[in-house]
C-alpha cells in the first residue's frame, strides 16, 4: 500500500517535471528566427507609427554596435558615439568591443542565433559574401544611402560592398598596404634612411644589406615575406600583377596564380627572401611585434598599424614608402572594415531607423577625418582623402598615394585562401618541398572552394 503511494507520487513528480520542461522549450525557440518571422508583418504597421511616437515621447531606443577589440578603433568609435548621442538624445548606442579579432566571427556566429547580437556590426569587407549567404545583413536603405552618391563620394574600393547593384555595407575608413622601414637599422647597415627602396630590386638589395645574422638566428631581419601577416595579400595583388599575372579571372570564378610562367616567377620571388636571399624566415619572426621591437628593417603593413606603433613603440624611428614597384607596375592591396545593419535591427522599424541614422553618422567625411587622426586609417570619403595636408603627411602620405591603384580582392573565404598560401610557403621553407608543386596544390585547394561557392549560385 505504502509502496503504491510512493509510486504515484513519483509519477506525479515526473509528469510535473515533463510539463515544466515542455513549457520551457517553446519560448526559447520563439526568440529565434521563427518567432521574428511570424511577428514581423503585424509589427511593421504598429511600429511605423510607434517609432515616431517613441521619438516624440523622448523614449530612448537602444541599439548595439559591435567591433573587435583594437584599442585605437575603440577610442575612435567611443568618440563618434558620444558625438552621435549628443545629436540624438533619444538613441543610445551600446558599444561592444570585448571580442578579440581571432574570435570575432565565431562570437557573431554564436550570438546571432541566440538573438543577442549587434544591430550595427563592423565586419571585414571580405566576409560580406558569407554573411549575406547566412542572411545576416540587410540592404542599406536607398533613400538614406543613394548608390550614385555613394559611388561618386567614396573611394572606388568600396565597390566591393555592392552585390548585384545593391549596397550592403559602408565603411568609415579604408586602408592600403605600404612598406614600413626602420631608419635606425638602415643607418646602422650603411644605407641612406632617406632613400628607402622604391622598386622590388632595391628592396632585395637593401634587405640583404640590412640583415644581421648570428649563426642560425637573425639579429636583424632584413625583410620577411610572411604569408601569415600581410604577405599573402602582397603575393596575390602586388607580386602576381607585377609579373604580368592577374590573380583571379574577371568573373572571380577561376584562380590564376599559376596560370602563366609569370605566376610561378612571382611565387619564386616571394619565397626567395626566405631561401636564397636569407633576409629572414617566416617561421622565426613574430609579426608585427618584431618590427615594433626594432628588429626588422623592412615590413609590409597597413595604415592601421600607425596607431598601434604610436601607442606601443612611440620611439621607433621609422618611415613609410609606397609599395615597391616592379616592371613599371604599381599595385597595392586595399581593404576596409565596413559596417552593416543586421536582421536584428531590421526586425523592428524603430531600431532600424536608429541604426540607419547611426550608420549615416559614422560614414560622413567628418567621421573619416576623426578616424584618420585616431586610428590612422584613410578616410573612405574622397572629400576627406584628397586633403593635401594628408597627402603630404610623412607617414600617411604613402598610403594615401596608393589609393588610386589599390585593389580589393574578392574573397570567397579569406581565411582558407590565406591558409593555402601559408601552407604552400611552410612546405617550401620548412620541409624543402618543390615550390611549383606547392603553388599548384594551393591553387587547386582554393579553386575547389571557388567551384563549390559558385555551384550554389
Amino acid at each position: 500500500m505504502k509502496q503504491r503511494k510512493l509510486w504515484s507520487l513519483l509519477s506525479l513528480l515526473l509528469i510535473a517535471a515533463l510539463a515544466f520542461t515542455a513549457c520551457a522549450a517553446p519560448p526559447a525557440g520563439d526568440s529565434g528566427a521563427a518567432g521574428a518571422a511570424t511577428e514581423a508583418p503585424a509589427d511593421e504597421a504598429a511600429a511605423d507609427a510607434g517609432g515616431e511616437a517613441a521619438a516624440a515621447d523622448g523614449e530612448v531606443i537602444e541599439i548595439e554596435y559591435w567591433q573587435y577589440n583594437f584599442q585605437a578603433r575603440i577610442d575612435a568609435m567611443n568618440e563618434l558615439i558620444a558625438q552621435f548621442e549628443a545629436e540624438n538624445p533619444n538613441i543610445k548606442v551600446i558599444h561592444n568591443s570585448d571580442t578579440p579579432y581571432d574570435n570575432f566571427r565565431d562570437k557573431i556566429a554564436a550570438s546571432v542565433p541566440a538573438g543577442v547580437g549587434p544591430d550595427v556590426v563592423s565586419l571585414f569587407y571580405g566576409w560580406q559574401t558569407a554573411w549575406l549567404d547566412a542572411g545576416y545583413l540587410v540592404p542599406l536603405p536607398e533613400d538614406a544611402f543613394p548608390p550614385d552618391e555613394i559611388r561618386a563620394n567614396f573611394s572606388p574600393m568600396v565597390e566591393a560592398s555592392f552585390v548585384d547593384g545593391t549596397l550592403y555595407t559602408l565603411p568609415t575608413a579604408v586602408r592600403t598596404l605600404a612598406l614600413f622601414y626602420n631608419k635606425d637599422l638602415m643607418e646602422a647597415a650603411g644605407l641612406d634612411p632617406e632613400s628607402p627602396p622604391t622598386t622590388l630590386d632595391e628592396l632585395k638589395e637593401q634587405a640583404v644589406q640590412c640583415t644581421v645574422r648570428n649563426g642560425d638566428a637573425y639579429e636583424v631581419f632584413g625583410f620577411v615575406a610572411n604569408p601569415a601577416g600581410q604577405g599573402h595579400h602582397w603575393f596575390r595583388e602586388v607580386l602576381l600583377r607585377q609579373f604580368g599575372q592577374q590573380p583571379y579571372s574577371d568573373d572571380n570564378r577561376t584562380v590564376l596564380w599559376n596560370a602563366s610562367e609569370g605566376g610561378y616567377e612571382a611565387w619564386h620571388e616571394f619565397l626567395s627572401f626566405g631561401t636564397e636571399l636569407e633576409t629572414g624566415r617566416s617561421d622565426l619572426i613574430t609579426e608585427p611585434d618584431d618590427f615594433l621591437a626594432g628588429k626588422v628593417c623592412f615590413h609590409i603593413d597597413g595604415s592601421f598599424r600607425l596607431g598601434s606603433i604610436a601607442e606601443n613603440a612611440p620611439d621607433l624611428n621609422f618611415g613609410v614608402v609606397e609599395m615597391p614597384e616592379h616592371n613599371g607596375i604599381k599595385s597595392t592591396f586595399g581593404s576596409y572594415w565596413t559596417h552593416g545593419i543586421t536582421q536584428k535591427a531590421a526586425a523592428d522599424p524603430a531600431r532600424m531607423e536608429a541604426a540607419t541614422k547611426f550608420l549615416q553618422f559614422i560614414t560622413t567625411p567628418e567621421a573619416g577625418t576623426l578616424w584618420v587622426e585616431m586610428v590612422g586609417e584613410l578616410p573612405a570619403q574622397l572629400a576627406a582623402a584628397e586633403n593635401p595636408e594628408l597627402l603630404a603627411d610623412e607617414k600617411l602620405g604613402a598610403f594615401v598615394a596608393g589609393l588610386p591603384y589599390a585593389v580589393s580582392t574578392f574573397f570567397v573565404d579569406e581565411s582558407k585562401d590565406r591558409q593555402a598560401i601559408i601552407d604552400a610557403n611552410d612546405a617550401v621553407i620548412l620541409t624543402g618541398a618543390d615550390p611549383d608543386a606547392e603553388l599548384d596544390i594551393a591553387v587547386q585547394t582554393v579553386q575547389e572552394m571557388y567551384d563549390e561557392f559558385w555551384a550554389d549560385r
Partner: protein
Amino acid sequence: MNLTIRQRRIVWAYSFLSVSLIFFLFIRWYPTLLAVNISFRDWNVFAGSGEWVGLQNYADIWEDLFKPRSAVRAAFWNTLRYVLFGVPLQLVLALGIAMLLGQIRRFAGFFRAAYFVPYVTSFVAVAFVWRWLYQPQIGLLNQIITGLGLPMQPFLTSPSQALPSITLVAVWRSIGFAIIIFLAGLQQIPDMYYEAAQIDGANRWQLFRRITLPLLNPVIVYLAVLQTIQFLRMFDLVQNMSTDNAGGPLKSTTTVVLEVYKEGFSGYNMGYAGALTVILFLVILLITMLQLRVLSRRVDY
C-alpha cells in the same frame, strides 16, 4: 497522503535529482542530439535552420580525406598520435611519480601540491607560457640549448616537432590528476600482501609486477579511459599554441575538435562540423568500449 520519513526522504532525493536531470537534458543531451540532427543538414547558422541533405556532409568529409593537404585527414591522424604518445607517457610517468611520492614523508604535501598545481591552471594560460618558452631565437628553452652550444630547435614551428612539443605540455598540464588518483590507488593496496611476498623472497620488481600492477588495474583502466578521451578531445592547447596558423605548421598539430571549431565557427559549415563531431563521438565510444574490454581484469588475492 501519509508517508513515512523514509519515503519522504526518497521523494525529496528524487525531486532534487530531477533538477539536475533537467539541467543535463537541456545543457548536455539536447545540444548533443541537435548536433546529430545538424550533421544531416545544410545548416545555416544565422537562420537557425537547414535543409535535410542526408549523408552529404559525411560524404564530403570522406572526399576531403583524400585531398592533398587535407585538414580532416591530418586532424584524425594527429588526434590518434596525441593519444598514442600522450596516454602511455602520462600513465607511466604518473605511476612512477606517485610511487616516489608514496615513499617520502618529509615535504610530502609540498611535492604533491607542486605536481598538482598545473592541473588547476587554465589550459590557455599554460599554452601562452609554453609558447613563449618554445619560441625560436628568444624562447627560454632555445636560450638554454644554444647556451650549451647545441643547434637552435624550431619546436612549435617545425612540422615534425610541433606535435610532440604540444603533447609534452598536455602531459605536464594534467599529470597531477593522474598522480593523485594513482596515489589513492596505491594506498588502497594492503601492506600485508607486500609483507607476505617479501617473506617469500620476492624482489622489488616482482612486488611491482605481481602485486602493485594487478591491484592497480581498476585505477589504470579508469585513468586510461579518461585520459584517452581527454587527448581525443584535444583543442585548447593547440588553438593557443599555434596562433596565426592554428593547427599548423602544415596542419601538423590540428585535431578533430579544432577542425570542428574552424569549420563550424569561422567557415560557418555547421553541418560539416556536426558530422565531424558525430564521427568523433563514435570513435570515442568505440575506443572506450574496446579499452574497457581489453584492459579490465578482476584480480583477487
